[in-house]
């Protein structure tokens, strides 16, 4: 990814930025109010408009090699793992499926690049940037909050930075991506479920942040 292509993308976004609404844009104050610092603290915020490109292709074909070169990182081949390259995170979603996540506005540039290297190889590349939004849950109590509704083993011995999972939190499907060891988790959630998930997380956080 060159700096130029990212900048070009951002100009297109800027022009329409005033027309965009993120699923939780109206909830920022409540998310902040429900967050608390401290040794048992936990914070919740929305990271809106992340670029999300769903990539499906044969993991051992020539296209996979070209994609790896273009991204600057191999496509993760270990179950539920993540590779990071520059500002992009590549999440393993299945044996032939990945989600490329990047900053706001990078989707068109990344899509163009990947479409070129895919060439005639059968695969699919679908822009899902508006399909989901991202909730970031962080702080010393973040894991305990998630454990109220996520049946996965999130203990550092089992799950940590570099791990992702498609799972459910409460009754909502999410893609869970741990980004640091504090811990910080990203919950990529479909737009229509975002409000319920945010309400559920705020409720679960209320125990840690009295």
């Amino acid at each position, binding site marked *: 990814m060159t700096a130029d292509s990212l900048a070009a993308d951002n100009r297109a976004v800027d022009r*329409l930025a005033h027309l965009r609404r993120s699923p939780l844009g109206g909830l920022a104050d409540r998310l902040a109010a429900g967050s608390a610092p401290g040794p048992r603290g936990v914070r919740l915020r929305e990271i809106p408009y992340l670029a999300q490109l769903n990539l499906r292709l044969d993991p051992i074909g020539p296209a996979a090699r070209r994609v790896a070169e273009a991204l600057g990182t191999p496509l993760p081949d270990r179950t539920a793992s993540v590779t990071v390259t520059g500002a992009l995170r590549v999440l393993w979603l299945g044996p032939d499926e990945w989600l490329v996540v990047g900053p706001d506005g990078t989707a068109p540039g990344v899509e163009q690049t990947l479409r070129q290297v895919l060439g005639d190889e059968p695969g699919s590349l*679908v822009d*899902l*940037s*508006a399909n*989901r939004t991202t909730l970031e849950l962080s702080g010393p109590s973040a894991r305990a909050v998630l454990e*109220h509704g996520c049946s996965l083993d999130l203990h550092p011995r089992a799950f940590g930075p570099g791990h992702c999972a498609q799972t459910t939190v409460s*009754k909502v499907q999410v893609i869970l991506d741990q980004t640091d060891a504090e811990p910080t988790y990203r919950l990529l959630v479909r737009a229509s479920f975002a409000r319920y998930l945010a309400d559920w997380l705020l409720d*679960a956080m209320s125990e840690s942040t009295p």
Partner: protein
Amino acid sequence: MSNRLPTGGRVDRSAPLRFTFDGVEYTGLRGDTLASALLANGVLTVGPSLYRERPRGIVTAGVDDPHALVQLERPHSEPMQLATTVELCDGLAAISLQGRGRLDEAPDEARYDKSYLHSDVLVVGGGPAGLAAALTAGRSGARVVLVDDQPELGGALLGGGREAIDGRPALTWVAEVRAELDAQPETRVLTRATAIGYHDQNYVLVAERRPDLPGGGGRLWHFRARQVVLATGAHERPLVFAGNDRPGVMSAAAVRSYLNRHAVLPGRRAVVFTTGDSAYATALELAAAGAAVPALVDTRPEPPAALVEAAGAAGIEVLTGSVVVGTEGEARLTGVRISALADDGSELTGPVRELACDLLAVCGGWSPAVHLWSMSRGTVRYDEQLAAFVPDSAAQAVRAVGSGRGRHDLAGCLSEGLTAGAEAATAAGFPVTAPVVPSCSGDEQPAPPRPVWLVPGEEGDPSTWRDHFVDAQRDATVADVHRAIRAGMRSVEHIKRYTTIGTAHDQGKSCGVAAIGVIAQLLGARSPGDVGTTTYRGPYVPVSFALLAGRERGPLFDPVRTTPVHPWHVRRGAVFENVGQWQRPHYYPRPGEDMDTAVWRECRAAREGVAMMDASTLGKIDVVGPDAGVFLDRLYTNGFAKLPVGSARYGVMCRADGMVFDDGVTVRLAPEHYYLTTTTGNAAAVLDWMEEWLQTEWPELRVRCTSVTEQWTTVAVVGPRSREVLAALAPGLDVSNEAFPFMTVRHTELANGVPARICRISFSGELAYEINVASWYGLAVWEAVLAYGAHAGITPYGTETMHVLRAEKGYPIVGQDTDGTVTPQDLGMAWIVARHKDFVGKRSFDRPDTSRADRKHLVGLLPVDRSELLPEGAQLVAPGADLAAVPVDPLGHVTSSYRSAALGRTFALALVRGGRDRIGDTVLAPLADGRTITATITEPVLFDPKGTRRDG
């Protein structure tokens, strides 16, 4: 009268707590249960029995009490709690119950939630065996969880006093272990936490009580453990003799626990009745506490000499080879009748001796609490030596230790716990060796018991023994078991159901094995092992629905899905309708409008001017790859491989049985890229269906499916004036019919700069467009459509108007006009079923049943009275049908019914037997309220049958 001893006990004498029971005020201490506080105040009697209204008293000190049900009123209203498990707190109020409790109608303020926790080793039970297991496992560095149902750890040691470990009081050892466990970073100890269920893959549910929360409450823990150690202890069994339910007849171990743990002396003059060693401690400690203990009745002809000697030294006469055969008293025990028992247990042999007493402490033996073991699918076997069912072979990675598997001495419990903890941690990948077992005293390995399952009555035979209670909660007696057997039952499961033994609140914890013993006796079986146990089922203790519901109630009950336009719908005052989890505008009433008026107005706008709707909830799937067309050809009844790029086509999908599964419009965006839409409710099911075929049947197809439902916001613009609105909204687009014909797609930039994918498709028969934009622009584009349509009076409409418009055109809704038994042909859509290609469901159309002429067809119905609205679901019969016949010969039923502005009358769609051959016929809809609506069968397309309005 105070039964509180002046010293001792694990109660805080500096903290008196006031409480009421049945309206009377009492005082207890912190550390009391409600039961121990009542006993301390001389209150033994609780609610009378359910059916026979016999007086009943507190029996045990735990979850197995058969009588002590109370309704808690303060601090929180809770029905059917056991006084023996309710922790006393200041201000507590309870009333006794006769069986059933009642739910408070006031909102429950308690906070219940749940949590998931994974561990390497889960130890259930905080007695000596469980503590030892957790200690060793924790030292390995493994993730260890110890759960125990009491407020403090120690298990049976809490009710003891003479036990010592390493030469010091055993509870000192308990405190040291607790401190070490707390210091282990990966060990977690949960008290007041009862394991209630044991499922596959070591999935254990634990109910934690949290009285510390302001409104009370609890947490349901979902544990997944690599290894489980069950140190669940044992329940003391009752004995079955005449009058064994009288208040004052208590468990010997419970008496001891009340003495030592709560410093309460439940009686002043006590007789002890036992089949084994353990009750000697009760007798000795009762005597030491100042009670008169005139006799200890031991069923064994030759109890261990040391015990007899110790009893004698305390002034207690030991009556060997004897049994209690009856009790005296009304509200409370005043005496017992004792007799010698024949060696074979079949008859009483000695003269009956009467002894006055106000307490009878009974030990009928010990039943390991195998409930969780059994729920884990582990087998149990009957151990003749122990006279108990004990864990046999494990079905999961689980070990049973201590008295939970029949090992009752302290040293044995510690040894088994230390070893099992080490084995479990090692098996979980954290090698560790068990430490040396510390020296123990005060709780030696007991001599074998002499079980007596049924103490013969002084007169009569088992058929008349109606005061020999087997399950006192159910007032079920030996006579009832006898009747069940006389009725031909042999299986313990059948007898349980016939007599209801074991089905009350404690689910047989106290009486279960005793009942098996009685059954064995009456059947003449060799031993209870030949009868076997009933099935142990969770939950181990009763739990409230509130605990199971957790936070998923009220606003968090279920996700409410909304579209990006939702805030506008709310502002506009839409009335919403739940469609699956989606909340969709049903209609938008103006001030003073009811639903009929609003829908009528919205329909007219769509037919005469222009109207708009939020169609974002439609399921949307990108189907990509060289074989995408072939794939869709195989799933849809009609063809898609030859669909030109830029064009759209309506398709119907069937299940393999040929029945309609879903429908929707698919657009070909590029040679290898289709954009498929599904019905709102079927979005996930259709994607699953596609993946199932791709992954299991046609893996060779190079196709990928991706849900894009929420990537796009979809705004439908409908009506004769929709073209002029679109022309203004999309200035760069040639919207003429020639340049943008029906069933095509265009990409353009809207006037506000937002890129859009616009499809010319119609679900109303009118000229219409569906504008798709990235969903984060959805609200802005909705408002732009509204603004550009304002001059034309653009009218937002909801799902009801959508339904009316489509029904006027005879368009079916999958799931409303179909129900999984309807073929495309039944819907009058034979035209959409391809003859020259194969597709899922095609072969089913060759079945005789799918080609019957008298299948139910989708038809229209016009009520003769133009204002009469047929209820949806109404059954239809032919004129002259005999309504008194059973069953009435049915013709079909109404699937959709509306008032139509365009038709100026009511109409309906219906599935009618041979309906297409009955066009013009009359049918009757006899309603539940006695009216009968007459209607005429028509073609399903009632409005614009020639399709003249499609192009505007």
